[in-house]
């Protein structure tokens, strides 16, 4: 028990960030489930973080109100952005959401209420580890259950083949907007918790590199099952600590190791680390390989 407390004292912040990153990765998984490549979820986290921070700092709102407010604001923006943007596909959607991320960042730098380039300061550190992992557990449960609901079947059909899905009666645009909005809300919630963990939130916290990191978490962990993004986020967030443990300093080496892991996963585990654990998918993976060779 004492050892556990000691472990937490040393690694508590890493554990918190694993939870936050896992939640962010999961938020992107809602859009990836429908085959949509979005780079906007980091920006949604930023919107959630700023909104929640403003609610707490300026309006003295209680934590739960701030968190939900941040999530809701991100959801509203997601809905408004999704309706026009989700007519785009593949790399065009990625570009549009990337541009949106820049708009959010530049807005955060230039607005007064967000504190400009220095960011919004004075946010109390009141997010607790249990809150992060409770939110993560609920989001994961929601994701796992969603897949067996009408929405989930529709989203997966869209990912597999949009035209065929439409001919089965799936309202493509509606379901895409729903998935995008849910993803934005989850990202906003994660961003709001981050703001209350970090004392401040700055425009850099949810920039382009974070957007790409979220995608990498999903690819490394696997996009096809709810624990895939969680695995990916956990591994890659803990990696600097692991590397330090074996005597490698943080910095460029970490990025190189990230790249190697990503490459190995793409080459040998096209369905991500999660495919090591699933009972069902190895069948699909095997036949996939057989077809390629």
């Amino acid at each position, binding site marked *: 028990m004492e050892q556990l407390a000691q472990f937490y004292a040393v690694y508590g912040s890493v554990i918190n960030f694993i939870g936050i990153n896992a939640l962010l990765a999961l938020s992107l998984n809602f859009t990836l489930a429908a085959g949509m490549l979005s780079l906007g979820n980091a920006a949604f986290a930023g919107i959630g973080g700023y909104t929640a921070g403003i609610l707490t700092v300026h309006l003295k709102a209680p934590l739960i109100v701030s968190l939900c407010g941040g999530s809701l604001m991100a959801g509203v923006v997601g809905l408004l952005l999704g309706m026009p943007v989700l007519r785009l596909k593949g790399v065009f959607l990625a570009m549009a959401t990337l541009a949106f991320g820049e708009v959010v960042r530049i807005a955060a730098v230039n607005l007064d209420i967000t504190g400009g380039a220095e960011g919004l300061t004075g946010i109390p550190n009141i997010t607790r580890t249990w809150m992060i992992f409770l939110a993560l557990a609920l989001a994961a449960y*929601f994701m796992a259950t969603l897949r067996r*609901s*009408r929405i989930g*079947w529709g989203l*997966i059909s869209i990912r*597999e083949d949009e035209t*065929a899905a*439409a*001919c089965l009666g799936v309202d*493509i645009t509606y379901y895409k907007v729903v998935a995008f909005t849910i993803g934005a809300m989850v990202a906003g919630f994660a961003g709001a918790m981050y703001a209350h963990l970090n004392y401040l939130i700055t425009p850099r916290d949810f920039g382009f590199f974070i957007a790409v990191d979220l995608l990498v978490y999903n690819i490394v962990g696997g996009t096809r099952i709810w624990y895939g993004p969680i695995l990916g986020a956990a591994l890659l967030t803990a990696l600097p600590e692991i590397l330090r443990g074996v005597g490698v300093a943080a910095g460029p080496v970490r990025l190189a190791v990230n790249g190697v892991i990503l490459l190995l996963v793409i080459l040998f585990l096209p369905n991500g680390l999660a495919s090591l654990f699933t009972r069902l998918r190895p069948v699909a993976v095997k036949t996939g390989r057989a077809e390629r060779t």
Partner: protein
Amino acid sequence: MNLSVDNISRSFGGVQALMDVSFEVELGTIHGLIGPNGAGKTTLINILSGVLPPTHGQVLYQGLSLHHLPAHQVAALGVARTFQNIRLFPTMTCLENVQAGQHLTAERPLMPRLLRLPSAGREDRELEERARDNLVRVGLGDRASHPARSLSYGERRRLEIARALALNPSLLLLDEPVAGMRRGEAAEVADLIRSLVQGGMTILLIEHNMAFVMEICSCITVLNFGRVITTGSPDAVRRHRDVIEAYLGSERGDA
């Protein structure tokens, strides 16, 4: 109250794929759509299913205009289809493909599932049972847990039919349902199609296998270069001069 195709035209840039195509499909029958490659058959199926809008003209089904309805709304009116180039959901199993096809016939509400209510489990079991019945119907009963992409070509075509049947359609559009099938397999599909029509369904099918078309269709429309040559019974179509010419070329042919 038939399916009427009314003066449909469709162009792609400068290419006129369909010109003033009109014909009627009597409900409860098997109607064939034939013609040489590039005649515009698949374009017409795409228009009927809402995948493509027509440039001109309209489609009436059961008195309703399908004009500019998107594909998912056409499906909601009871129109299901298969694809010439087979568009299954490749990473799903056969059973899951059919379950995905139940989108319009199933409720699958989220809330009872989140709360783990027994009603959700009951619905899922019923839907799975129905999906298995559909697989049995097309002769894939023993393939339920196989991934769709592990199937043979003919099996994939039959799985697509099973998925379309999961919509409980009143009109089924089949784009080359027996292409690439062995004779015995094609005969099984013919039996299946006949049994569907006996159950009240209407079938419009494209097929290059003439023996198959002549045997099961009660009426055939022939397209060539985007125009209707003729619509009539298999015997009349077989003897029609322009049809023979379209398929075999004319005697004075300049080729």
